[in-house]
């Protein structure tokens, strides 16, 4: 009797574990969790977006990178996929090797009231694509996969 009962309990427990796993993995729990905001989202926050630790992700707007050799100041504009919403980013020190026009980047820091994002950390986000170089290709499709990756799917 006791053995039968404990076996029943064990089966119930295993089913419970599997059920909870299913809920965790397929329950759509993580819809609200994002790794970074895009410039558009950060600007849309309005006043609530200033002076708080956030991560900002987007594309380096081509032609906006300014580098000062002496002060190691790096300034560039991060733009959304739509190319309309821009945020000026200020960072210190040499960027990673893959940093260039039109690459996807994620910067950590605070968005100041002076409309300049002070970055404490700059990371280049590489896509999962590996392509041989072809003439005339830009990093545009790379940023697309970056944006898809943001929904943590």
């Amino acid at each position, binding site marked *: 009797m006791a053995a039968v009962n404990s076996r029943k309990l064990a089966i119930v427990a295993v089913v419970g574990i599997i059920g909870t796993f299913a809920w965790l993995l397929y329950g759509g729990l993580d819809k609200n969790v994002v790794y970074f905001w895009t410039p558009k989202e950060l600007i849309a926050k309005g006043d609530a977006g200033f002076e708080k630790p956030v991560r900002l992700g987007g594309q380096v707007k081509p032609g906006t*990178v300014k*580098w000062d050799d002496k002060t190691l100041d*790096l300034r560039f504009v991060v733009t959304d996929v739509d190319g309309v919403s821009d945020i000026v980013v200020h960072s210190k020190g*040499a*960027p*990673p*090797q893959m*940093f*260039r026009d039109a690459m996807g980047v994620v910067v950590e820091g605070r968005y100041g009231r002076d409309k300049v994002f002070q970055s404490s950390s700059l990371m280049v986000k590489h896509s999962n694509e590996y392509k041989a170089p072809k003439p005339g290709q830009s990093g545009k499709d790379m940023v697309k996969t970056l944006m898809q990756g943001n929904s943590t799917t």
Partner: protein
Amino acid sequence: MPPIAGQNNWSFVIAAYAITWITIIGYWVHVHRTLRDAQHDLDAANAAGAK
């Protein structure tokens, strides 16, 4: 454009491959040494048991 940090890519590639092979060979040797020692112990135990 800012200067690119760490111009020499190949040094990183070589480092990655080197660490791979060091690990593989190192663990390979460890496994075979364990195997040899175990076999040695078994032979010794069998010899002692047969006496």
